[in-house]
C-alpha cells in the first residue's frame, strides 16, 4: 500500500485515546448535540441533524470496513435498507408498540442476511470483493423493488407505526416526536461509536488493520484472514442494521431508492469527505454531505453531476478528506 496508508495506521494506533483534552472536547460536543433540540426548536432542523446522525452511524460502519479492514463495499446502504424494512415490517405486522424488540429483530435479520453474503465475499479480496458487494446490493435492491406484496415496491413501505420509547417500564417519549426520536438516535449513535472505538483500538482492531496493510503477511503471522474479514463485515452490517432501524423510526417511511447504487455512492462519499480510518471523520462527512445535499437539491436537479465531480476531486486532491485536512493544519503550525 502507499505511503498515505502507513500514515493512517500510525494515526489510528499510536495516538492516545484517553488524552484529557480530547475527552473534554468529546463531552462538550455531546452536550451541545444533546441540548440542540431544546435550543433550536424548528422541527425541520432537528430532523436534519437526526438524519446526519443516522447516516453518520452508517458511514462509520462503512469506515470499519473500508478504512480499517481495507474492504470496499459499494452498497453498504443495502444493509441500512434491510434493517429499515425488517423493523418497519415488524412494527406493521407483528407488534406496533415494541420498539426495542423491533430494532433487535432488524439487527438479527440484517446479520442473518449478511452472514451468507459475507461468507461468499470474504473468499475474495480487493476488486472481487467490491464487485460482489455491488452484485449483492443490486440483488437486494431488485428484490425490494419487485416484491410488491411485501415491501410495497416502488411506493415504498408506508404507514409504519410510531411506538413509544420505553426504558425499564418508563415511557420516555414517542418516536413520532422529533425531539424524542433525535435523543434516541443520539444515544444509540454515541453508544455505537464508543463500542466501535473500543473494538477498533483493541487487538482485534489491530488484526483488521494488519489485514488492510498486507493480507498475505497477516496470514503468515497466523491470522485467519477470512474469519477476521467476516467478523469485520458482520460488525459493519450489524451497525448498518441499527442505523436502518433508526432510519425507519425517524422517517416512518422507506422506499427502494434508499437502497439504490446512487445512495450507496452517497455513503461512500460521506466516508471520503470525512476521511477514512478515523471513525469520527465519516460522521462529520455525513453531516457535511447531508447538509450540502439538502442545500443543492433545492437549487438544481442535476445533483448527480455534482456528486460525481466532488468524488473525483476528492480522490484526486484530498484523498484523506476532512481528517487529512486537520492533520495538514497541525503539521503546518508545527513547522
Amino acid at each position: 500500500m502507499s505511503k498515505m496508508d502507513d500514515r493512517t495506521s500510525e494515526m489510528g494506533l499510536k495516538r492516545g485515546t484517553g488524552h484529557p483534552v480530547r475527552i473534554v472536547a468529546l463531552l462538550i460536543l455531546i452536550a451541545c448535540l444533546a441540548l440542540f433540540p431544546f435550543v433550536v426548536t424548528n422541527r425541520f432542523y432537528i430532523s436534519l441533524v437526526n438524519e446526519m446522525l443516522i447516516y453518520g452511524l452508517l458511514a462509520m460502519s462503512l469506515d470499519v470496513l473500508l478504512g480499517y479492514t481495507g474492504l470496499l463495499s459499494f452498497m453498504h446502504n443495502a444493509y441500512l435498507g434491510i434493517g429499515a424494512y425488517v423493523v418497519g415490517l415488524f412494527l406493521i405486522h407483528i407488534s406496533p408498540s415494541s420498539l426495542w424488540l423491533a430494532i433487535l429483530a432488524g439487527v438479527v435479520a440484517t446479520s442473518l442476511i449478511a452472514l451468507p453474503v459475507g461468507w461468499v465475499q470474504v473468499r475474495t479480496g480487493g476488486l472481487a470483493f467490491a464487485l460482489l458487494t455491488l452484485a449483492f446490493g443490486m440483488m437486494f435492491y431488485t428484490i425490494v423493488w419487485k416484491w410488491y406484496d411485501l415491501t410495497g415496491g416502488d411506493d415504498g413501505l408506508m404507514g409504519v407505526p410510531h411506538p413509544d420509547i420505553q426504558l425499564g417500564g418508563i415511557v420516555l417519549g414517542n418516536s413520532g416526536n422529533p425531539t424524542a426520536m433525535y435523543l434516541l438516535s443520539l444515544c444509540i449513535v454515541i453508544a455505537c461509536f464508543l463500542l466501535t472505538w473500543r473494538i477498533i483500538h483493541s487487538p482485534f482492531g489491530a488484526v483488521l488493520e494488519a489485514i488492510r496493510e498486507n493480507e498475505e503477511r497477516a496470514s503468515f503471522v497466523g491470522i485467519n484472514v477470512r474469519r477476521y474479514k467476516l467478523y469485520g463485515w458482520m460488525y459493519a452490517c450489524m451497525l448498518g442494521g441499527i442505523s436502518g432501524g433508526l432510519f425507519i423510526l425517524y422517517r416512518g417511511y422507506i422506499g427502494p431508492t434508499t437502497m439504490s447504487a446512487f445512495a450507496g455512492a452517497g455513503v461512500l462519499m460521506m466516508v471520503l469527505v470525512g476521511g477514512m480510518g478515523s471513525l469520527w471523520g465519516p460522521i462529520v462527512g455525513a453531516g457535511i454531505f447531508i447538509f450540502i445535499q439538502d442545500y443543492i437539491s433545492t437549487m438544481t436537479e442535476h445533483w448527480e453531476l455534482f456528486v460525481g465531480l466532488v468524488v473525483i476531486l476528492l480522490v484526486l486532491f484530498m484523498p484523506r478528506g476532512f481528517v487529512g485536512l486537520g492533520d495538514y493544519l497541525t503539521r503546518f503550525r508545527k513547522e
Partner: protein
Amino acid sequence: MSILAITVDIVLNSLVLGGVLLIVAIGLNIIYGLSRVMNLAHGSLYALGAYAGFTLVASGLNFFVALLIAPVLIAIVGLIIERTIISPVRKRSIVYTLILTYGLMFLLDGLIKYFWGNEPRFIEIPEFMRQTLPIAGTHYPVFRLVTLLITAAAMIGLMLFLGKTKLGIILRAASSIPEMVSCMGINMTFVHIGAFALGCILAGIAGVISGPLYTIDPIMGHEMLISSFVVIVIGGLGSLRGAVLAAFLIGLVQTLAEFFVTDLAMVIVYMMMAVILALMPRGLLGEGRFE
C-alpha cells in the same frame, strides 16, 4: 407458435443479448487487463455511445455511418478521461481507482441527463431493417439479425487486431508481463491510452447497436455495467475465451428467465455470479486472475 419456433426465438434472442453484453464486457476486460483499472464508468460510456448514435441519426445521418462515427467520439471522450482523471491515480491502491471511476460514472450520467434529459429515446433505423424475416415458423426482426452480424464482425475484427497486427501483439504482451514490455522500449503510457481507447470504441459500438434494441435512457448503463461484470467474473477476469462463453451463457439465462419469470431475471444472474466467485474464483475456464 410451435416449440421449434419458440426455441429459435429464444436462441436468437440470447445470441443478440449475449453479443451486446460481450462487446461491452470485452472492452471492460481489455482495460482491466492492460492497465489494472476496473472502469466502473464503462456502462456510462456505453450509454453515451447510445446517445451519440441517437443524436447522429437524428441529425440525418445513416445508421451505419453513425455506427462508425459514434465509437470514435466515445474514444475521444475516453482519451480525455484517461489523461486527466485516471492516469494520476493508476499507481495508487485499487480502492482509489474504483471510487474514482464510480464518481466518474455519476459525472457522466449527470452530463447525459443534463444534455439529453430524462425521457427515453429511440434510434431510427433504415426501412429494410424494420421488416421481419420468416425463420422456422417465427418472424424474426431483420434488425436483430443485423445486430448479430455487427457483433460478429466487431469480434472478428478485434480478434484479428489482437492476433495479427503488431499493435495487438504489443497489447496482448502488455497484459501478461507489463514490465517486460516496457523493458523492450515500448512506452507503457501509450499502451494504457490505447487500451482505454479500444475499450471505449467497443463500448460505443455496443451503445449504438443497442439503441434500437432497447430504449435509450440515462440509467441504461447501470444494468449493462453490472451484467458485464457478471460476464467477466464468470468468464474469469482477463480471459477473452471465458468472456465469450460467459456472455452467451448470461444471454441465454437472462432470455430464459425473462421468458418464464420476468421479475427475477436479474436476481438469478446475480446469484450465479456469487456462486461462481465463491466456488471457482478463476472463472468457468479457470483462466482468470485476480490481483
